[in-house]
């Protein structure tokens, strides 16, 4: 069976520096939810950029390997056309269009859709996040951090992507808001049947959310498997869940 996303032996280099990703392999089954864990600088965002075709914008270059979405290679495909092929993305740092209103932000997301479906899709997002409906005429820059994250997610969901990349969704947000957004994300995954790749620093959250997890360290996948197993591994416990450390301190 073809995977929603299949990455094989991917290596990436920025300018003349060393490899940012070294022979990374990762696969996401159809409708599967996968978490990518790793410390700062491990290469998580680089991997996201490689998938979404945004590497050239950052001066990065794929040295070797392959990336396939639904069995088709996406290497060298311009980033903006991937959206039409079913890729949705919630970029790190939210990056909402601050001077546009909430609705206009969603409409930018819907720009690749036929006009007839636009309203229906917008309503779908509003049903998911009623807060956005309340504030639909407000400039996005005036929203709170949580609302901006909802908007960034909503903007990606408007196209009903088959594969959704979510980069550091929890960054700088209150835990309650994060869990609320994740709940909606879970709902979306189930109703749309979308495959989701979440990149998270909050390992506990990500491991609860995803069925499979990969751990990225210095550009290499050091551990992968079902989330429960990954959560039990000594490395993850120590580095990401802080379990052993706490015991020692206690």
């Amino acid at each position, binding site marked *: 069976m073809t995977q929603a996303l299949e990455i094989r032996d991917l290596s990436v280099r920025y300018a003349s520096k060393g490899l940012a990703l070294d022979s990374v392999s990762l696969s996401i089954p159809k409708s599967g939810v996968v978490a990518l864990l790793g410390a700062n600088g491990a290469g998580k965002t680089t991997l996201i950029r490689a998938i*979404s075709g945004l590497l050239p*914008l950052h001066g990065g270059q794929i040295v070797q390997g392959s990336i396939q979405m639904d069995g088709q290679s996406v290497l060298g495909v311009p980033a903006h*056309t991937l959206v039409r092929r079913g890729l949705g993305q919630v*970029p790190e740092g939210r*990056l909402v269009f601050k*001077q546009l209103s909430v609705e206009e932000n969603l409409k*930018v997301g819907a*720009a690749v859709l036929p006009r007839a479906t636009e309203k229906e899709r917008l309503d779908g997002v509003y049903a998911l996040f009623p807060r956005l409906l309340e504030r639909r005429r407000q400039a996005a820059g005036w929203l709170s951090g949580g609302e901006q994250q909802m908007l960034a997610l909503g903007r990606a969901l408007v196209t009903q992507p088959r594969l959704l990349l979510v980069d550091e969704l929890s960054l700088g947000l209150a835990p309650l808001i994060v869990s609320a957004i994740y709940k909606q994300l879970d709902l979306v995954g189930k109703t749309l049947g979308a495959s989701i790749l979440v990149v998270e620093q909050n390992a506990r959250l990500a491991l609860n959310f995803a069925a499979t997890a990969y751990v990225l360290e210095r550009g290499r996948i050091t551990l992968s498997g079902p989330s429960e197993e990954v959560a039990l591994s000594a490395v993850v416990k120590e580095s990401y869940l802080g379990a052993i450390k706490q015991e020692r301190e206690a």
Partner: protein
Amino acid sequence: MTHNVDSSPRAGLPWARTLRWLVAVAALVYLPTLLTERQIFGYALSNMQLLNIGLSQVNLMLITMLGALSLNYLTGSAGLISIGHAAFYAVGAMSAAITGSQWGWPFPAVLVAAALSGALAGLFAGLPSLRVRGLYFVLSTFALHYIVVFIFMEYQFKFFDVVGVPYKAAELGSWALNTPTRWYFFLLPLVVAVYWLLHNSLRTREGRAMQAMRDHELAATANGIDVRILRLKAFAFSSSIAAVGGALYAYYLTNVTSEFFGIQFAIQFIAMIIIGGMGSLPGAVVGAAVWLLLPSIINGLAAQAGDTTGLVRSMLFDHKPQLVQPIFGSVVILLLIFAPWGITGMVSRLQAKFAARRAKS
């Protein structure tokens, strides 16, 4: 630029709105009569009561507004700044010289040709934007300016002479634009139409995409927007409007030389949008008005004050041109210090303040 704060119940009555529009239209229609007859309902006005402004200045202002509008559209929608807008004026003037003065095309066709050649030049000028950003892009438009002015000069000397390129009288069918009033009634609707066009284009899919691109290029790309094509489109659109401005400028002045399009001509557009408010269309209108009318107002004031006493008189009257520049410069600096967001930005901030105060009480 849109600041979509929750819609306030500001003057919600529909008839009040209509009335305001009617008054504005009536004032604009009456303006040329006022400025040529220099009296209002039989009551004669002195020069200073009319702020030392004549209709020709208003017409030049309208033509310049096209440049300011197109530049502010570029900054406001696409986030690009160009020093090349004088070059597009020159492109328009040159295209008008070829099609109008040499080939004898009618005036409306000349304007269309200017728009097309402006778009083409803009496409070329926008190409560096695919590779370079920010200051580097500004520099590339700077280079473009010198290239175009050089070509204009060569063209002028090859086919005309040092006196400049002569333009025919502008005619719309049998209606000759031979008085300032007629020019006014041709230019005003044109500027309004361009304003309306630009304003509405920001509300289309592409317009929103452009604003998205301005805010976050990366997020825009991730939403399926091809920023390269969009940037070129914005540039071509903006420069075609500027080129029409250039053709109008040439026809209005009836004779133009390459020296008209110096670097100061280029900088003035940037100054206008900074004064009026970066990235906002009303800002372009206000900025162009201030830039073109304020010097003449200061000039008038200096002349009037010059009628008074000995020393002040000699100071003001004999050194009038030297005085106008520093006063104007100081006003601009004060504006930049106290209203860096431009005049329109200042006004909307004050409005918001008053609204908040009213809401409190």
